[in-house]
């Protein structure tokens, strides 16, 4: 009996070792350990044995059963691992094939500039105000210290609209409207479309965008104007940029300044972008003219303020190196899809 069991064990182990797949293994399980399996058969024949031998043979039989079970399990693990490995190998893909295309729409570069600037000023605690494109002479000129028949009106060739109105030539009327309805401290920006009689060509457009800001409080100085505008300029054009302030003229500010940033393309060496000057003109600014404050009902002795304005089209053209202002209006898909 015992020898028979040993022979069975040997046979089983041999067959298990050579089993090639899970099905074969399952068959072996049935063949040896199933209800009618060979090992089971031996155990069933134990009744015919001498009762004294039974425990011994029973023990042996159980040992054999355990050994076969263990071998089966071990072989199963190996075969499973092989199978998995093979599957994973078969499933390998060509990772150089293109990804799934996303058909999302693009943001217009003008919007990108507006959002970057608005976001920056909101972070500094400025509020965003708005005003109409169709304006009165008062808000566009008079209240900004630009009287009728003043040469400063030549700086802004105006479109007039029926009903004695005009299309605003700058966003500055919103400053006046804000000063009229709010009391200092005021910290605001506004942006939008402006209009001047200019034929459309590579560098001019009858419609363009400006962003304008105003700060009014006690003790606001030209030094603050410089501090804020340097911070703004470096945020847009990079931390290393030089910023230059030089005297200029706007009827609604006094003193007035023009702000240049060192050309980021040539690092100030001079190139076509900066007309070989090394500087890009980006901002007009100044301390709000006391007359303008007073016209809007703000005490010019108690409060001072600064204002600034920039052309967003030019800003976008600088930042993205857009060569022709008309691209901003053509809405050519070959252009739009690059932003």
């Amino acid at each position, binding site marked *: 009996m015992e020898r028979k069991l040993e022979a069975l064990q040997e046979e089983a182990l041999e067959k298990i070792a050579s089993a090639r797949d899970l099905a074969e293994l399952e068959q072996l399980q049935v063949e040896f350990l199933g209800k009618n399996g060979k090992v089971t058969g031996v155990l069933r024949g134990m009744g015919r044995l001498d009762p004294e031998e039974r425990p011994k043979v029973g023990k042996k039989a159980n040992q054999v059963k355990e050994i076969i079970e263990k071998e089966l399990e071990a072989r199963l693990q190996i075969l499973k691992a092989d199978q998995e490995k093979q599957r994973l190998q078969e499933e390998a893909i060509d990772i150089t094939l293109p990804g799934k295309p996303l058909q999302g729409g693009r943001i217009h570069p003008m919007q990108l500039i507006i959002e970057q600037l608005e976001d920056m000023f909101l972070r500094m605690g400025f509020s965003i105000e708005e005003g109409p494109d169709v304006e009165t002479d008062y808000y566009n000129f008079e209240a900004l210290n630009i009287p009728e*028949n003043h040469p400063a009106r030549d700086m802004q060739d105006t479109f007039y609209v029926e009903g004695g109105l005009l299309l605003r030539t700058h966003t500055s009327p919103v400053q006046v409207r804000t000063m009229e309805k709010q009391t200092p401290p005021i910290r605001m920006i506004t942006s939008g479309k402006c209009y001047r009689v200019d034929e459309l060509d590579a560098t001019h457009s009858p419609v363009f965008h400006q962003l304008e800001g105003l700060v009014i409080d006690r003790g606001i100085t030209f030094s603050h104007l410089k501090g804020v505008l340097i911070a703004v300029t470096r945020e847009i054009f990079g931390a290393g940029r030089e910023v230059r302030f030089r005297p200029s003229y706007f009827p609604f500010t006094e003193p007035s300044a023009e702000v240049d940033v060192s050309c980021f393309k040539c690092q100030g060496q001079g190139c076509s972008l900066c007309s070989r000057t090394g500087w890009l003109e980006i901002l007009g600014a100044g301390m709000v003219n006391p007359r303008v404050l007073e016209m809007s009902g703000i005490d010019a002795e108690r409060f001072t303020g600064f204002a600034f304005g920039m052309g967003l089209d030019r800003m976008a053209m600088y930042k993205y190196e857009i060569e022709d202002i008309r691209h901003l209006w053509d809405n050519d898909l070959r252009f*739009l899809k690059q932003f």
Partner: protein
Amino acid sequence: MRVSYNWLKEYIDLDLSPEEVAEKLTTLGLEVDYIEDWKKKYKDLLIGQIQEIKKHPRADNLTLVNVGLGRKDLQVVCGAANVQKGQKVVLAPAGTTLPGGQEVKKAEIRGEISQGMICSADELNLQEEQAEGVLVLDKDAVPGEKFAPYFNLDDHIFVLDLTPNYGYALNLLGVARELAAVFEQEINYPPITGEQESGRAEDLISVEVEELESCSRYTARIVEGVKVEESPWWLKVRLLAAGLRPVNNIADITNYVMLEMGQPLHAFDYDCIKDKKIIVRNAKEGEKLLTLDGRERELKEHNLVIADTEKPLALGGVMGGLESEVTLKTYNILLEAACFNPASIRKTAKEFLLHSPSSHRFERGIDIENITRASRRAAQLMGEIAGGEVIGGIVDIYPQLKEPLLIKVRPQRINEVLGTDISRMEIKSILEKLHFKVKDSRRKEGAFRVQVPSFRNDVKIEADLIEEVARVFGYEEIPATLPRVDMELGQKKPGQDIEEKIRNVMHLAGYHQTFNMPLISPGENLQQNCSTPLKITNPLSSDNSFLRQEILPGLLRSLAFNARRQEREAALYEVGDVFPGRGINQKSALAAVVMGAVSDGVPWLVEAPEFFDLKGILEIITDELGLELSLNNSSHEFLHPGRQAEVVINGEKVGCIGELHPRLEEKFRFPSRVGVLEIDLMPLFREASLAPNYRGVPRYPAISRDIALIVKEEVSAGGVFTLIEENGGPFLEDLILFDIYRGKQIPGDCKSLAFRLVFRNPERTLTDKEIEDIMDQIITRTGEELEAEIRQ
């Protein structure tokens, strides 16, 4: 303004490179646009002497000229008729470049070598019109030497871009004065002799000023016996450097003095003045004047004229008249130097489109105290250059003397505004360098009393003087600091968050953002029922003569632009402002266009992909913003009659959606159907909510049932939808139309609509029985009301 550096150096000793001077001018606020390098422009030109002239053997109209350059001679083939032996001329040797940029090459002309070119004045850029022959220099020119120094052409020209407040710097002395202030230099004023002002001038002319408001000072001086001819070269070069065209010595002298001292002058032919009387008056309505440019001007009453007893002679300060013009025949001169009112000059100059160097200066204000000196200077030059006799005395009508302006300036305020710490001493010194007279206060902290010089018409209040101090102190020297503020949240503008949300949806849906000009032509308006758009009274062209009331016209222009460039698929949108009508009236709108949309899946998406693409967007937007969307039938003429709708949001009509009418598609040459959408955003800004409406995660499972209903074609899906919803009971959570079928097993005039119904009770699991009851109810009701049948 154009400023010659050589000329400038006559008034101020500067030992600086042109670049250094330009830099300083710019930091003072006199922005130098660029520097014209004449030294470089004229560097190749030499003075030559004509040694010998021979006929060209093979060309009658050409000569062979031997030009001596001191040590060597060059042979030049020349076509000019005026060359003569012994003449000093300007030679551009082969291999050099002319001032205009053309290269001079060694050439063989009909078999004869030409080693250069003898230049005419126009070839040297010294006159505009073509010269009759080569330029002949005076006898003192030295052959072989460079030509540029001979004519003072080794110069640099600063091209200044002056803002309107720098009227006082529109002349050489004004610019010199600015530089003198920062470099602490003295000015060398031009010598003006014979200032004794007595003589017979008053016997020769009388002046009457009727309009003192428009002409606050008028002076007249007489120069007799002038010889009007071309100016000497040094004078012409000065004018050329300044960008003015030389005319004759008298006109050139008036321009020269204007450039030097800033005072516009006008010379009349004295003998053309009737009754030897000048009247400064307003024109009579309809009165005519032939101006110097040869045009007859019909005058209006507000135009100021300089007249004699009979007729107007000139438009005061703007342009002279042809009849009293100084010509080669003129013998006696009446020299006018006056001060005209800036606003009146500006009005007249604009009206007649006569913007001249004179009107430019009058508009910005001139120095009323400098008039007689400028007049004297010009008369003196007329004596020297044109050989005239300056008659002593001047007629000077100046009844209301200009009082010098006194401004109170607080040094402390200057520092408060600038954020600086400039001492009283320094402030005083800066102002004095700029020719302001400063009277210090007796108190230590007291204000200065500052007297403004007569040439500074731009300075009127304390703030103006703060700027004067700042620009001389140097903007670069003012420290940059950040203000200390009371903390406050920055607020976005109303509707901005909602607009951002909408733009995000558009981008996710694949629509590209566009910017379109709000200017359109009247024919582009799509909606016939709009009120009249706002009209621009001075448009650039009729294409841009109205303000848009809708975004779509511009968007369609953009779509057509892309279609012309072979784009077959395009989805564009704009969120922007429109101008509904009269007055200041503006609101935000959303418009979108889509062409060649690709959709697969359910049949209606295949049938009208553009329409349902846009409808899908509206559904997402309203869903995101917590709004109710519905579409009503509409009849817009610009839209496909069977594919359009009125957009209604929260019960309010806000716009339209549809497919462009095929007629318009053809007109724009779109390659395929175009879907359009435009809605007013103001109701959305008002009613939208950005907060998500969270209702908890369901704890009980949902049960879904599909049902296909066969209905007549004329029954709309929406009608079936509504009926199911009404009868679906409180637990109908979701209702989806997932297919429409026509064809086999369905009668020809019918269609089958397949719905999925999803039920859920938040309190417990629903039983099959409950669902069956509801489904039965739905089937019964749709059967009764719509004659719907179940498709098995």
